[in-house]
């Protein structure tokens, strides 16, 4: 039965990827205007080229990218290109391929997201559960209101505030970038320290904002878990507080939290992308921001496709891990 579930979930993942690719293919073609033509016209007004030259260039581009083929053939070619992660050339940094730009930026984003999601999930879950736990010290309850506030505001607003206060006014942290400009990325300890210093503020904004929503989520669950009969029974058996908290309370209250992790990954990533823009962190978010400003469509579509793919994969993994955490759901 597990195999059937696995197959079904994997099928869903494939549909999402196929849907994203199809959207990327058809939307630009349905939209008024032609990105290549517009881009070339914009370039020609800058460089003073004549219009006839532009029309010829458009035609040669169309032949080069196979845009003169029938639509279905273009579509099939496109899907094959997507499978090979070939998103075409960047229009603003021409000889560079969109794929290379994306894969250069990807490690920064993945690193930042992985660390911040894990830290905020663990801290937020523990904190929220402790707020709801009747034996916790009283002052913890005062944390509930700030948590609610943090949960309600978008990540990047917090990022802007932190940037202004901690980096601009107090000068504790660098203002922007992923490492000091001028240094070459290498494997030395010094460089890693530099990277760490630059990533603390982006990470802090994501962690602080995300902790709130995790804490709010688990708090409600923990309160209803505390009312369950097995908790009363555990207490009657004289189990230690720690055992009750972790093995009886948290273990059960956490299960819906895992589901919401899978559901909110998209939300976290979207927020983190804009946080990157605030700090001009060299990840996918900044790449996307610059591509949008430069009307660099192939890079925009490439980034969107990669993010959908990565998130689809991550969501699927979380979903599939669920039966291992909850023995009741071994289909």
């Amino acid at each position, binding site marked *: 039965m597990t195999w059937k579930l696995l197959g079904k979930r994997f099928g*869903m993942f494939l549909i999402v990827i196929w849907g994203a690719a199809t959207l990327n293919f058809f939307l630009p073609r349905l939209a008024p205007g032609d990105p290549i033509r517009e881009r070339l016209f914009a370039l020609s007004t800058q460089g003073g080229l004549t219009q006839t030259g532009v029309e010829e260039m458009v035609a040669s581009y169309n032949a080069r990218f196979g845009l003169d083929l029938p639509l279905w053939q273009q579509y099939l070619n496109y899907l094959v290109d997507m499978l090979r992660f070939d998103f075409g050339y960047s229009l603003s940094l021409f000889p560079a391929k969109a794929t290379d730009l994306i894969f250069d930026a990807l490690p920064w984003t993945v690193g930042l997201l992985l660390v911040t999601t894990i830290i905020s999930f663990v801290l937020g879950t523990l904190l929220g559960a402790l707020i709801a736990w009747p034996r916790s010290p009283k002052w913890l309850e005062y944390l509930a209101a700030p948590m609610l506030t943090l949960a309600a505001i978008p990540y*990047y607003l917090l990022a802007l505030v932190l940037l202004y206060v901690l980096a601009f006014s107090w000068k504790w942290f660098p203002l922007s970038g992923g490492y000091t400009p001028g240094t070459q990325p290498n494997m030395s300890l010094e460089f890693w320290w530099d990277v760490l210093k630059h990533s603390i503020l982006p990470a802090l904004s994501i962690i602080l904002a995300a902790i709130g929503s995790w804490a709010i989520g688990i708090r409600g669950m923990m309160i209803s878990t505390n009312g369950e009969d097995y908790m009363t029974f555990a207490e009657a058996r004289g189990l230690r507080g720690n055992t009750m908290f972790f093995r009886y309370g948290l273990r059960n209250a956490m299960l819906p939290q895992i589901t919401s992790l899978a559901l909110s990954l998209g939300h976290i990533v979207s927020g983190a992308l804009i946080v990157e823009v605030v700090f001009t962190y060299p990840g996918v978010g900044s790449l996307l921001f610059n591509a949008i400003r430069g009307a660099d469509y192939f890079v925009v579509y490439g980034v969107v496709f990669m993010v959908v793919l990565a998130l689809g994969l991550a969501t699927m993994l979380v979903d599939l891990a669920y039966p291992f955490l909850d023995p009741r759901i071994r289909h």
Partner: protein
Amino acid sequence: MGTILVGQVAPAADTATPGIRRKLGIATYLKRNPKLIAGLLMFSSLLLFSALGPLFIDRELARPMSAIPSQPPSSTFPFGTDDQGRNLLAVAVVGLPLTLQVGLIAGFVAIVLGTVLGLTAGYVGGITDMLIRGICDILLTVPGLVVLITVAASIQGAISVQMMALVVASLAWMWPARTIRSQVLTLRERAYVQMAKLSGMKTPEIIFREIMPNLLPFLAASFVGSVAAAILASIGLEALGLGPQNEPTLGMTIYWAISFNAVIRGMWWWLTMPIVAIVILFISLFMISAGLDEIANPRLRKVSS
């Protein structure tokens, strides 16, 4: 609590005394639901600000070049001015309603779509249900904002506020549809629905006259949730530069402040106005939706106390 439960969750049951008793019930209940009150107060102060603002300040001042650029807050410019000479107080007066408008339109479209699909899936069942639920499940795993980026980037030229709302709404209906469907599944089995079915009522009539009224508190809660989600998505798109380029919405103000390096130039006031407005907006919506949740789902009440 029992009487309120009747008044709120099954209003169709007491059709004999519709008006007064229910209003009284709501008034006494509100006292016990401080979150809802605080949220509504904050939200209505924002509405009041956008309604009364234009009486005190000329909306034209929200255009570029209408004031001295880059001025910190002073008695002439209470919120300061930005790099392009917009009076930020005027921007708040013009921008806040625009942002609210995007949220309300998108939230409304999302909730209508979600309700229709959720009701159909839940009540009709069978293949229709499987299809709708499948589409929802698949779309829910998609990062909404990221897909909206493709859509917004493809719509070339200046996108209008209404267009923006529709773009956002296109990926906001799945969650309402999913949750409404599961509500309908439980309502469908209630005795009065069975009774209506036996007495020969037609399906649309059962859906709209028997099931819908009982869904209302629940719909209100998910409407507020959808509005908040829509505003979040629209501000996200705008902060990335995909918003209406000629309208000073709150998100566009953030985009301009980021693009023109407000932080590095020490222009804190440029960011303060949109950040404060957005934070108040989100906290108020969050509290209203938490408060409404308690009405729609009485089991939550003991949690809050």
